[in-house]
């Protein structure tokens, strides 16, 4: 079920009413059933894949806690391998066989690419990683194994974050399923406000910009440099608003039900370096990779070369996590290279700035750093969004060529939509900037009821009339 659909608009209030009216002991099974329904709305049969993963990691968790010595490690490895095998089959098998066939062709062997007809279950990478974090945390002794199958299943399947995160750790979420969450108006209203902000980002900004981006990136050769640049700028906002909008809706809907999810974004485009960007973008995934891949690798290799290796491996795998295509791998590695180059050139850059008399914390230096980080990120987004490496080359080579101001619109995105798109971005930036100094929710709550309600309703109607409601999937669902 998509958050931005009429079905969800009917499902969520109906479920909330049932949930809060239900007796305490019925709530978890009810939440689990609703989560199953939510997931099965996409492709019902794929719930079985999720069920297999849940059973494997539930049993593994209990045995990891129960046994000791090599058996304990064997349970961990067995659980990781089998969970990853499911991910591999559904997400990477075609990519693997396609590349195997290509390599064999180069070597003169004739292995045909079988092309399995597999549809990737929505959000598979997200719940796989959440399951993995559970068994690893149990193995590390950071969390007790969950004995209650219903609670464990609900932890993996909790519908607000089931298909696109945030990827939670058991310490953060699992225990919340044992607590009774009463209906509290203030908390519910706060959750709804957060959802409204997420919907604004998704339907008013991301899906509007998607019309432009899809046209241009669908056939970049048909567009001039200005359109290519604008599409890339728009994509930066599209993917941010799409994914952070999803996270806002997830956090907000969980809050309505009484659950606290981790924050996944922290105004990433205000980052002053690529490393800071990755601390503020998709935080739940970045911290997952940091804790379970990067830190262990650094620990193992303990040298500068080892550090560089750890970064490239982490970002390469992170790229592959996003999708089974070389563009994603290159995108991941590019970010790794950014990070390495950033680390290696930090001192010389500081010397240049000092020589120019620009202080470290000056507005000018901060602006340059933010702009440079955003620019590098945009180059990365070209690789991420383009459908082939050929398109990547074309777009990067033609950014600056043939800027025709008389031809900005596209077939789907007429020029009259531009003011709405730009206004959406401006509203987003203004709110984010103001929110850094003033808590806007608190300010809103200080208003008398009448203007506050008028504001809520105007916001809702604005979203309905300026939004794009074409059942556009969230970009990260495909991962």
């Amino acid at each position, binding site marked *: 079920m998509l958050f931005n659909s*009429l079905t969800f608009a009917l499902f969520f209030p109906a479920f909330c009413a049932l949930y809060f009216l239900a007796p305490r002991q019925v709530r978890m099974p009810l939440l689990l059933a609703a989560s199953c329904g939510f997931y099965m709305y996409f492709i019902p049969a794929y719930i079985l894949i999720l069920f297999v993963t849940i059973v494997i990691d539930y049993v593994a968790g209990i045995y990891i806690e129960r046994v000791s010595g090599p058996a304990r490690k064997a349970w961990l490895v067995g659980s990781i391998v089998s969970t990853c095998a499911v991910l591999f089959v559904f997400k990477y098998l075609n990519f693997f066989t396609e590349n195997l066939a290509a390599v064999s062709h180069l070597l003169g062997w004739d292995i045909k690419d079988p092309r399995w007809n597999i549809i990737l279950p929505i959000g598979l990478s997200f719940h796989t990683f959440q399951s993995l974090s559970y068994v690893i945390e149990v193995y590390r002794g950071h969390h007790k194994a969950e004995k209650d199958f219903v609670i464990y299943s609900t932890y993996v399947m909790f519908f607000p974050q089931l298909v696109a995160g945030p990827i939670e750790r058991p310490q953060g979420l699992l225990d919340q399923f044992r607590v009774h969450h009463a209906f509290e108006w203030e908390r519910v209203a706060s959750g709804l406000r957060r959802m409204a902000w997420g919907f604004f980002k998704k339907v008013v900004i991301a899906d509007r910009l998607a019309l432009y981006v899809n046209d241009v990136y669908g056939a970049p050769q048909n567009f001039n440099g200005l359109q290519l640049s604008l599409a890339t700028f728009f994509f930066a906002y599209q993917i941010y608003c799409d994914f952070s909008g999803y996270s806002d809706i997830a956090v907000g809907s969980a809050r309505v039900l009484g659950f606290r999810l981790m924050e996944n974004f922290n105004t990433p485009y205000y980052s002053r370096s690529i490393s800071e960007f990755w601390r503020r973008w998709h935080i739940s995934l970045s911290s997952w990779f940091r804790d379970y891949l990067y830190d262990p690798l650094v620990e193992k290799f303990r040298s500068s070369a080892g550090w560089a290796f750890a970064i490239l491996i982490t970002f390469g795998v992170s790229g592959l996590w996003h999708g089974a295509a070389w563009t994603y791998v290159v995108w991941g590695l590019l970010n790794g290279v950014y990070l390495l180059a950033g680390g290696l050139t930090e001192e010389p850059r500081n010397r240049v700035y000092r020589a120019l008399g620009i202080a470290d914390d000056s507005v000018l230096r901060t602006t340059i750093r933010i702009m440079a980080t955003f620019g590098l990120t945009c180059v990365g987004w070209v690789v991420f969004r383009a459908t082939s490496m050929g398109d990547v080359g074309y777009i990067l080579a033609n950014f600056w060529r043939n800027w025709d101001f008389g031809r900005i619109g596209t077939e789907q995105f007429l020029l009259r939509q531009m003011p709405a798109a730009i206004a959406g971005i401006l509203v987003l930036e203004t709110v984010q900037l103001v929110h850094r100094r003033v808590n806007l929710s608190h300010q809103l709550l200080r208003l008398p009821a009448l203007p506050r309600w008028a504001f809520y309703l105007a916001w809702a*109607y604005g979203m309905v009339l300026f939004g794009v409601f074409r059942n556009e999937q969230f970009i990260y669902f495909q991962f």
Partner: protein
Amino acid sequence: MSPRADLRALASSAAYAWRLMTGAAAPLTRGDRRQRDALRLLWFLLLGALGAVALHLAIHTGLRRVTTADFGVTNQVVAGRLDAEIVISGSSRALTHYDSTLIQKTTGRKTFNLGLNGTQTDVQVAYLKTYLRKNAKPALVIHNLDPSAFAVSHEIFDPVKLMPYLDEPEIYAVVLRVYPHAWKWRYFPLYGYAVEDLRFTWLAGARTFLGSQPPESRVLGYQARHTPWTGDFDKFKASHPEGVKLDLNPQGVKDLAEITEVCRRHGVPLLFVYSPEYDGMQALSSNRAELFARFAEISAKAGVEIWDYSSSFICSQRDLFYNSQHLNVTGATMFSQDLARRLAQSRWLSGGATKQSP
């Protein structure tokens, strides 16, 4: 109790409900708080729903009050205000090829162009049916034929143009056929505008509701296009070196035949015209002969003449088109002049001109 006391009691209850809702009636017990929260939610939902209905009505009323451009034309059609003697029906090719003023001047007959941008024959039939049901009977209907005359609508280009007219049975039926969920557009306030209005057409409705009309773009239904050759066809040709196969869907054939039937039922003579198409595109269509064979079949069966401009000199003049299917204003003027001359001498109109409209 006196009416005044009743009113006082009512006002006092309403004031209490408001204080309860806004939290001013403190201190509250747990039960009171629940009651307050439930009341708040209900009020909010009720106000939200009322606001949505009001906004929907304002937009709908505004669009129905438009007197200019595309909505202006459809509003005249559904209001039954037209009394044209020559009615032109069809797609964007009809819209941009038939200069009604010029045809009217030459033939001396009131002319109106119903061309509907981005539509196939199924939608055009519905539109023509609505016209014939609501307006004065014309002396002649000219239906412009397209290469896509037998294609069936899988979507309607900018369906918001039909959104205020879902009460018209013919229009609603065809919209529902293309979009089975279109009943939601009709019955859920703002829903149709939310899901289909990518171009902010609702703003035109809101503006007109407040008294401002959109700029005029159509004269007696005709829309002149002052656009030079765009070059899109050259790209299209390059990407289709093997040519293109025109869609000859049996349902599309039925839809075109239905036009002949509709006109017969209303006792209105019908003429099919295949207006000029750029000859580069004609050469690119691999099954064009088949298309024309079907046209011939339908017209022979219904006794309808076809005037085919496929071999007109206009078709070879690239500077008279802005793309392979559409004439620019210069091309449209040339075509309309020629057509009007032929019409003036035709059996349908040569019986004598009526008084020319101003």
